[in-house]
């Protein structure tokens, strides 16, 4: 397990690529960002809006919205800088928490319409539990919903233009299938990379096809009829989660993690709206050997907002922090006892990168 020479990302991250100098493709992408003609990109954005913005109805576009710094930043700019009227569409977090709800309400008060979809919780919990067990990821079905619900709303309301945030594969290291896919969200690619499976396959003794409705894309015909175009805001406007946070703090009293820092990291402003995120990122650490602190540090290093040494300190300090906050709510949601949780975690522990020392687990190749 090697770590990127520039940021701290390890090569265990799915699909990340390292070049001959040992630098990951997220860092190279960040270097590219300095060379991009952002004025041209802005013009391109305006052109897309003109051509594909909804021609009828009250909404110009859809913003898939969690209420977090990134999506609120996008929504705010679209409305107040570009004069568009976005419809905010939220696929409910598994376990909404107060900070998230509070931040959502703050933006709505600035003047936005909002559709919140909370799916069948009997089904949602069953899927969360199943995928936590099988893949060490309780948010697989949620990921599917986050992808499909905005597209479903676009089709239902006749709004072709959907502004997602950033293209994860480019920004954070992954497999970029084509240049187009940096700008226009490849709906199939999303399914192949993030979900890895067709959600229609998730039927079992208790879950039928109808129960999976929130997790399925509309048909290709419908998507083409409306002319759905899902795009990355981060392609047109230089993306940085720290900048997004600074922006949003200027326009509203955005609330951050109540104890001053989120479990597993040094930041207090990222991924705040779902109690389950604590568990989600912890399992990422177990499976791939990098925790939330590494993740946040990498992003900031790539955007020139933090030095590698400082990031390394944070990674060493916080990556392995146990997700205490909301732990019992999360276990309850997944209908797991604590021993069951521990057993499942160890089933997903990548033995190639972990070793047992006494009664503790240690990374074989800690960040360096």
């Amino acid at each position: 397990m090697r770590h990127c020479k520039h940021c701290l990302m390890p090569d265990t991250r799915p699909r990340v690529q390292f070049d001959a100098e040992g630098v990951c493709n997220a860092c190279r992408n960040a270097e590219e960002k300095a060379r991009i003609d952002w004025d041209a990109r802005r013009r391109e954005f305006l052109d897309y809006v003109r051509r594909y913005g909804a021609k009828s109805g009250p909404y110009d576009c859809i913003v898939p919205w969690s209420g977090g710094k990134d999506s609120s930043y996008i929504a705010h700019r679209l409305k107040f800088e570009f004069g568009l009227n976005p419809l905010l569409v939220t696929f409910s977090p598994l376990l909404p928490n107060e900070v998230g709800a509070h931040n959502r309400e703050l933006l709505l008060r600035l003047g936005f319409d909002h559709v919140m979809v909370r799916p069948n919780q009997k089904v949602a919990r069953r899927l969360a539990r199943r995928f936590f067990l099988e893949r060490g990821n309780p948010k697989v079905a949620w990921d599917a919903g986050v992808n499909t619900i905005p597209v479903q709303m676009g089709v239902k309301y006749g709004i072709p233009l959907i502004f997602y945030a950033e293209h994860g594969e480019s920004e954070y290291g992954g497999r970029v299938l084509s240049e187009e896919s940096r700008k226009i969200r490849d709906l199939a690619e999303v399914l192949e990379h993030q979900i890895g499976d067709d959600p229609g396959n998730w039927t079992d003794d208790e879950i039928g096809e109808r129960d999976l409705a929130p997790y399925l894309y509309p048909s290709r015909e419908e998507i083409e009829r409306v002319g759905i175009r899902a795009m990355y805001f981060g392609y047109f406007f230089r993306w940085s989660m720290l900048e997004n946070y600074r922006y949003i703090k200027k326009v509203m009293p955005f609330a951050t993690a109540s104890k001053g820092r989120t479990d597993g990291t040094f930041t207090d402003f990222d991924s705040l709206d779902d109690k389950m995120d604590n568990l989600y990122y912890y399992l990422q650490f177990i499976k791939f050997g990098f925790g939330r602190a590494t993740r946040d540090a990498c992003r900031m290093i790539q955007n020139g907002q933090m030095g590698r040494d400082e990031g390394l300190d944070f990674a060493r300090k916080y990556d392995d922090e146990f997700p205490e906050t909301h732990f019992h709510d999360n276990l309850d949601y997944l209908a797991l006892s604590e021993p069951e949780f521990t057993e499942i975690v160890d089933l997903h522990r990548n033995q190639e990168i972990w070793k047992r020392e006494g009664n503790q687990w240690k990374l074989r190749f800690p960040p360096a």
Partner: protein
Amino acid sequence: MLHQRLITVLTFNDGVLFRTKLFAPDYRYTHNFVDAWLVDEIVALDITRPGNGSGTAGHSFAAVIGGIARKCFVPLAAGGGIRTLDDARRFMALGADKVVVNTGAVERPRLIGEIAAPYGSQCVVVSIDARRAGDRYEVYSHNGTCATGRDPADWAEEAVGEGAGEILVTSIERDGSLSGYDLDLCRRVASRVSVPVLIAGGAGAWRHFVDGVVEGGASGVCTSNIYHFTESSIRSAKAFMRKAGLAVRLS
């Protein structure tokens, strides 16, 4: 009646189970959840590229084959770099029921007969990787990197003539996608030979398995998507296939 086979294809890179996309290792997986009971057959392939890997790839793959053969009571086909009868013998001695030959057979078709002679044709699966070329297809060797200029149906026919007992056809373009098998490719090969044809590359929705049998003419449908390997998934897939009218083993 003979039931349709749902076959799990496990691809190992340097001894580690990987999911592949366009034939490149894409996502490593823990095989704690690979179901060994509802699956009809397992194909284990060593896709470590020469020069890559830690040098212990062969050793770890041998351990994988031995482990599966001892603990799983379902047919096991093993392949990856088989160039000689001795290579095949090694896999058979480890416990494989069949061997899968690809590049080795393309380079030297006689290899097929050499293995079929002592073990029988049913032990030799010739694997053919192909890409679309206009309105035809072309066979690629060396893990999908070398164009051979050959037509897959022609090559399949020749391979069967040399003694192949089954043909495994994989669409390189579809590998790792969820968009379905290349049914045209499958049909072309299945209609040319009289041995069972197994189709791989692109299985996404359960419907694709049905299409592979009904429209492609496959005797076995393969998936190397690790999310299809759990007991829950295989049961769901087979229930779907049965509901669509196919004979599949469900217990």
